[in-house]
């Protein structure tokens, strides 16, 4: 008996012929998800393919950031003194706070995925909103840090000044400068550190902005109840993307902010 699945009106055929393929909801009767794309055999196969595809995309992101991380690794070894002093210009409390904010945002995203799986729509929407709030908070702190670099003339390019490094200002409390003065040629290499700092955190912030835009769209769709009846793939895949962006920051924070924080004398 050839189970011919013509392209028209396939939903009822599927129902009759492959009952075990559809998702069994609470009352145990079989319902086929409307989002079931025709070219997949089962919804399960579609979901597996979706997360596998998302992971492959994250692979490209790993290699994309990989190039930057290698450049950082190379120049940190070549110009360690410049990197150490320049890294001390970054504000550790703000960085640590940012890391905590992003971890919290990831936590709420994970709870969001859970809420979608157990089909609690209101909880899902709430979690997505929290994730967005913390995401935006992260960007706010980032913007403040960038502004501080702007004031100190640490943005690479024409306006970059190394005076801060060649003769470091005296710390009013201790009466002595916090840093050893850098030789002028080494001070010039601090511009490479700040270029890498802006390239890596800028690329990370750009990915955050994309994530937040997607979050607004997903929150709106979640609010319309699309993801609380078994179809969770978009939430799950966005969760993967969001956690990936969180992992990139988990590496960026120690590598950029904490190169050499122990006091020098």
């Amino acid at each position: 008996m050839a189970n011919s699945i013509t392209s028209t009106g396939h939903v009822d055929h599927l129902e009759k012929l492959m009952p075990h393929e559809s998702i069994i909801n609470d009352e145990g009767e079989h319902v086929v998800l409307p989002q079931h794309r025709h070219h997949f055999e089962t919804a399960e196969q579609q979901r597996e393919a979706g997360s596998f595809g998302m992971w492959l995309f994250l692979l490209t992101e790993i290699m994309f950031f990989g190039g930057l991380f290698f450049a950082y690794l190379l120049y940190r070894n070549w110009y360690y003194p410049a990197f150490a002093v320049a890294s001390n210009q970054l504000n550790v409390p703000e960085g640590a706070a940012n890391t905590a904010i992003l971890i919290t945002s990831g936590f709420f995203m994970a709870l969001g995925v859970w809420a979608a799986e157990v089909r609690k729509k209101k909880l899902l929407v709430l979690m997505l909103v929290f994730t967005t709030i913390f995401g935006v908070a992260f960007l706010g702190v980032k913007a403040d840090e960038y502004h501080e670099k702007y004031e100190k003339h640490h943005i690479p390019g024409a306006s970059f000044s190394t005076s801060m490094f060649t003769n470091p200002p005296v710390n009013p409390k201790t009466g002595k400068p916090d840093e050893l003065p850098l030789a002028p040629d080494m001070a010039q290499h601090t511009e490479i550190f700040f270029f890498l700092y802006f390239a890596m955190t800028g690329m990370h912030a750009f990915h955050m902005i994309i994530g937040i835009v997607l979050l607004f769209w997903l929150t709106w769709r979640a609010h319309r109840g699309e993801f609380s009846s078994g179809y969770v793939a978009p939430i799950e895949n966005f969760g993967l993307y969001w956690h990936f962006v969180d992992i990139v920051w988990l590496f960026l924070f120690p590598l950029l902010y904490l190169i050499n924080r122990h006091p020098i004398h």
Partner: protein
Amino acid sequence: MSTPITHTIVNLPDQATARIPKRNYINNEHGLLSWLLTGDHKRIAILYLISITFFFFIGGAFAGLIRLELLTPAPDLVSSDTYNKFFTMHGIIMIFLFLVPSVPATLGNFLIPIMIGAKDLAFPKINLLSWYLYVIGGILTLAALVLGGVDTGWTFTTPLSTHYLNTHVITAATAIFIAGFASIFTGLNFIVTIHRMRAPGMTWFRMPLFVWSNYAASILMVLGTPVLAITLVLVALERLIGIGVFDPTKGGDPLLFQHLFWFYSHPAVYIMILPGMGVISEVISTFSRKRVFGYTAVAFSSVAIALFGFFVWAHHMFIMGVSNYSALVFSLLTMLVAVPSAIKIFNWAFTLQKGSITFETPMLYAFAFIGLFTIGGLTGIFLGSLGMDIHLTETYFIVAHFHYVMVGGMLMAFLAGIHFWWPKMTGRMYPESLSKLSAVTSFIGFNLTFMPQFILGYLGMPRRYHAYPAEYQVLNVLSTAGATVLGVGFMLPLLYLGWSLKYGAIAGNNPWQATGLEWQIQSPPLTENFTEIPIIDYEAYDYEWLEKKQREEVTTVG
């Protein structure tokens, strides 16, 4: 009804009664929008085929101009700047807009779902997005060309590309960045489809070798392309802000660019050649009526090439001041990566043993591939061995080597694939005798063009030279003559394939009596490929199964 012993395998339905099937993916929907917004992998393959052919002939035109200029030792056809823009455009268009996407995006898109028994690729919308990104990348490249061209060479060597040129480098870099994502999405689609959407019974070792080689190429696309993306971003940033990681006067290291660029660009040459090898496995097996000799060896050597492809990139940099010891390591690994290609060549040769061989056009192109790819591959060993590389690198020997592999190997395989699956894609047969003529013309033209360049290479004529010493002229004239013949050889298929769309004989389901799943359904296929999901219980290239099926005359699936 056993066909009389003739010299050809082709069996077409009786032309008087045969018709193109009423419902197929071409006439399923009408109107431009149904093509531009399609999710059907077959239609996207046709869109890719048209846009790739368009860019191939633009790149080919630049090749013609270059050969025309090199007819005379003096720089007399165009100014140096224009000549530099010619070879840069030739490189960028041919590599990023033709060779990387050609077989995967056209034949791969069309055939992989059918060959593994799926209705479509895993992500049809991403597949369409991939084509749009390709077209945007192409348009941006043409924009860079029209606005004034870019003369950095396709390798964007820094610090030349970042500080010493004011041509449209950023436009070209953005174009390649976008076209790179088209290649990533194609690779991503293939990997997910091959892993997750095979028909029941289609185990890994029952899949055709075409699917295996596209799978290996997809791994390279997904893992390699992003590194090129970040490298081009860094080049663009350095041009905009002026400080960067590649500027030696500010402490940067230009060799870091070479490492990051070649980390992608060497796997890219395997992205280009592996799908071509897949086509050759299919063609050789069909026209010798035999299972590919050592199926598992050929399948695993595709994956081995993909894996080793990541370890060898610095053989492009042997004389650039990389340390002697790392040069040793990369030279040794380059020798290892050459072995799987040798395995494949011998396996194809032994597939012919005890076969029942016929010589249609795809088979002619396959023979051309085997011959020319052997030369291309072995000359690669010249460049892999350190001492030889010192004398041969950056000369015309390199130009001849990669054209033997890319044009002799990849393009011959692409044309073999186009001729082999043309009946399946369009339902029409192409004129056999004229296509054989064009195959022979291309073969002769190709050898006449690039064999002299090996000799020029050993004589030391440098690459990308607008003018050269007089004693090299004879060989250059030969090469230009060959280029004209090659140009004619590549123009012909455009004509008779176009002609066959309207006047070609009706092909029927299985004109070549091949065993692939794609030959068991109607041609051109339905939009959803199969009326029901096929159950596979036979091995790949199983001609006994085909024989039994034809005797029973049961159209199980079509």
